């Protein structure tokens, strides 16, 4: 589809926001982008299931998900002849797939082969080639730098590596946000102590953002109390992210932990299914919270540092693997299909007889996606993902 069709959101009157001394009147037409990072290496093989592969069922005697069976809510939901969706997300993500607002990219990831969570997460967030090991800045931060006027925010306790490096990016955890405790006079005095220090912008923004968020969430909570918003875990965060990203922020990051399932990860039920359910409810709540018009101008990408071993281990869990599956969601996403390069799933196609190979490098794929979303020049893409070879999977 044409990029200009994508950029069609209605102009809204939104109060200007001052952060880091810059005034942001949120540009009403620029697309929103939310990156969701699943930390711990989620088991993509039990989310996007290669149900036509006998090898899948041989490799996972106790944790494989049942083939599609009419009337069995614990069986997978077929998406095409080869791939199916885990039952844990079928209710929340199935409708988005049907509306072609959701696509999956299997065999995705990085060329970092350490199989270390921390090394690979840092590698991905930095957005540089695997040999670079330059963790001074992250690709979201550099994207924010080239976009200008697309206010960024991280919904995290700490500022993630993804957003480091290009100026000040505010962060706020949505797990428990209450009233702001300082009035304007106190905020000004507190900030004044940091004038001229390297923490000047962070101190000023932090105080202001706390007040803003407290106000917005107060309004949201009043508005939400008449509906039945599921307040559990990430679902509540999804709702709150929508509240904040609807008007003020358009480039977001959030992470969700707890995916390192070495033991008893479960099948249709159990810890992985619970995590997937929680995640997908948050994503659905985010889409709902934005409303159709704004969802049409939004792209969400879900990534993780790596996938897991294709075979289950001795403890009905899985160990660290390599290739994983990314999700791409949004109102105008060209979804409803499995995207990117693929290979038949069998013993011969595994990397090191262990896990999925990476056929879709995240730098190339995300670089191509961002180029299309924002109309970035090659030079800009090169800034965000140095020396990447952007691949256009035509997902927007």
């Amino acid at each position, binding site marked *: 589809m044409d990029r200009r069709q994508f950029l069609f959101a209605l102009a809204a009157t939104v109060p200007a926001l001052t952060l880091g001394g810059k005034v942001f009147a949120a540009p009403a037409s620029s697309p929103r982008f939310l990156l969701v990072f699943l*930390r*711990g290496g989620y088991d993509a093989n039990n989310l996007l299931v290669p149900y036509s592969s006998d090898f899948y069922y041989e490799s996972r005697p106790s944790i494989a998900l049942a083939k599609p069976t009419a009337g069995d809510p614990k069986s997978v939901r077929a998406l095409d002849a080869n791939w199916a969706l885990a039952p844990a997300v079928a209710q929340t993500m199935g409708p988005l797939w049907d509306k072609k607002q959701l696509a999956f990219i299997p065999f995705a990831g990085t060329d970092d082969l*350490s*199989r*270390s*969570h*921390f*090394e690979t997460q840092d590698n991905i967030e930095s957005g540089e080639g695997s040999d670079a090991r330059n963790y001074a800045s992250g690709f979201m931060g550099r994207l924010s730098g080239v976009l200008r006027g697309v206010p960024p925010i*991280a919904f*995290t*306790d*700490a*500022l993630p590596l993804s957003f*480091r490096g290009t100026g*000040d990016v*505010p*962060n*706020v*955890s949505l797990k*428990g946000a209450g009233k702001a*405790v*300082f009035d304007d006079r*106190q905020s000004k*005095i*507190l900030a*004044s*102590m*940091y*004038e*001229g*220090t390297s*923490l000047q*912008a*962070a*101190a000023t*923004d*932090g*105080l202001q*953002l*706390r007040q803003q968020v407290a106000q917005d969430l107060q309004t949201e909570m009043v508005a939400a109390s008449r509906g039945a918003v599921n307040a559990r875990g990430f679902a509540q965060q999804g709702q709150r992210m929508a509240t904040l990203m609807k008007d003020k922020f358009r480039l977001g990051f959030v992470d969700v*932990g*707890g995916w*390192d399932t*070495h*033991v008893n990860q479960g099948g249709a039920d159990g810890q992985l299914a619970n995590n997937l359910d929680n995640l997908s409810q948050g994503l659905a709540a985010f889409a709902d919270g934005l409303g159709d018009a704004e969802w049409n101008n939004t792209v969400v990408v879900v990534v993780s540092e790596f996938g897991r071993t294709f075979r289950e*281990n*001795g*403890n009905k*869990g899985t*160990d*660290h693997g390599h290739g994983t599956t990314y999700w791409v969601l949004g109102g105008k996403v060209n979804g409803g299909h499995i995207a990117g390069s693929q290979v038949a799933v069998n013993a011969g196609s595994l990397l*090191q007889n262990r896990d999925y190979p990476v056929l879709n490098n995240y730098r190339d794929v995300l670089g191509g996606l961002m180029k299309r979303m924002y109309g970035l020049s090659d030079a800009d893409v090169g800034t965000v993902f140095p020396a990447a070879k952007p691949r256009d999977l035509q997902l927007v």
Partner: protein
Amino acid sequence: MRSFLSACLATLLCLPAAAMAADKPLSQEDVAWLDRVTFGADSATVASYRDLGRRRFLQAQLHPKGDGLPQPIATQIAGFDVMKTPADTLLAQVRDQYRDIKDMPDGDAKQEARKALQKQGNQYAQQAQAAELLRAVYDENQLREQMVWFWLNHFSVFQNKGRVRWLVADYAQNTIRPHALGKFRDLVMATLKSPAMLEYLDNAQNARDKINENYARELMELHTLGVNSGYSQADVQSLARVLTGVGVNFDGQPRKLRPDMRQYYVQEGVFEFNPNRHDFSDQVLLGKTIKGGGFDEVEKAVDLIVSQPACATFVSTKLAKYFVSDNPPPSLIAAMAKTFRRSDGDIAEVMDTMLTSKEFIASLGKRYKDPTQFLVSTMRLAYDGKPVENPRPLVNWINQLGQAPFGRITPDGWPTVDSEWSSSGQIAKRFEIARAIGSGANHLFDLDEAGTRSIGGFPQLTTPTYYATIEPTLGPKTRNALSQATSQQEWNTFLLSSPEFNYR
């Protein structure tokens, strides 16, 4: 004499002058040094430093003799439920409760019993968190307490996994603290045998033909060698096989062992090495063959790993990153690693090398305090040894600041880079905690559970220690901010929020 003293105590104002006149004033470097070697100066530390001088003060800190807790705090910690019961008794109780719950018919009562058990576990974990914070604030062995924090973070476990919540108090007190300034190898072996670690990183599940490589990987990557130090995926799998059978005897039952296997069985408290679950085949690890055997294999593997030059460098680098700077000078790391190798991994000696180096002195005053350092130093300044009645606010605050002990979900521990703690959201939160402490709007001095009887009030920060340590360092912007305070509470809040107080 007596009347002079009481007159002085009655008017706080004469104390700073008297103290300063009686003692040699501290230099800016002394103050900065003390702020780094301890969690933050209080009057007892300053007095001890004046008395002993830097060299003897440091030696006393590197080689602490027993507990340095004031009696009321020692009594308070000893009174926690989790401290009254040894870990194996506690686990036996939990095991029985699990079994009883399993035997209950499905329904509300079963749900309630399950919830009650989890609630008890969470309370025990909170008591463990409170104990660590109280020790950090009050124990005179300040360097050891920082080392305990450091090693708890280096060998991080997450309380919300499995039975770990019942085990963290024991883990801190009996696994980490005794070895915090001892030999690194002993520390690795202690964590390797600790039920908290075995449960958290799944080695309790690792058995012959049921290999789980989680702990083996993190033992090399996070605990000893560091990623990209030369070990391979094959080494991870070999080490995982060496570690088969290393687990916990949670059910308390004696193992049924073939006669030829009995010699291999090892049990120490809850820890066990179960030869029935062990892979006895030879393994090649880091280029060396580990002959098939019993727990001996594990000892040999750990000896091999900790004697790698990469281990000395990795551990030294991590220590320097915590105590010196985000990017410690290579010369310093080389000197520390040399000491590590020469002294067979003696942590106190490595620390001595670091703390007496010119690189350490050059780094003073430039580190942004992490949340624990901020919270503990705030308490040490604000209450100066006065024992709190209720430690729960401390636990709440460290949770809000995002650095709870035993609260890191991943085994890499909390980051130590300055920028990880100085984002906008974190700074604002820190100001709010400064207000809660500085204004006295907290429950630290509640005398009853309901908080209806309190002997609280806001702290007086203008103590002799303040005048000897902090006041001289304040810049014009902070002085200007303090002059705008409309109450003592607000003045406290601004001081505790100031850049000068937040760097060390």
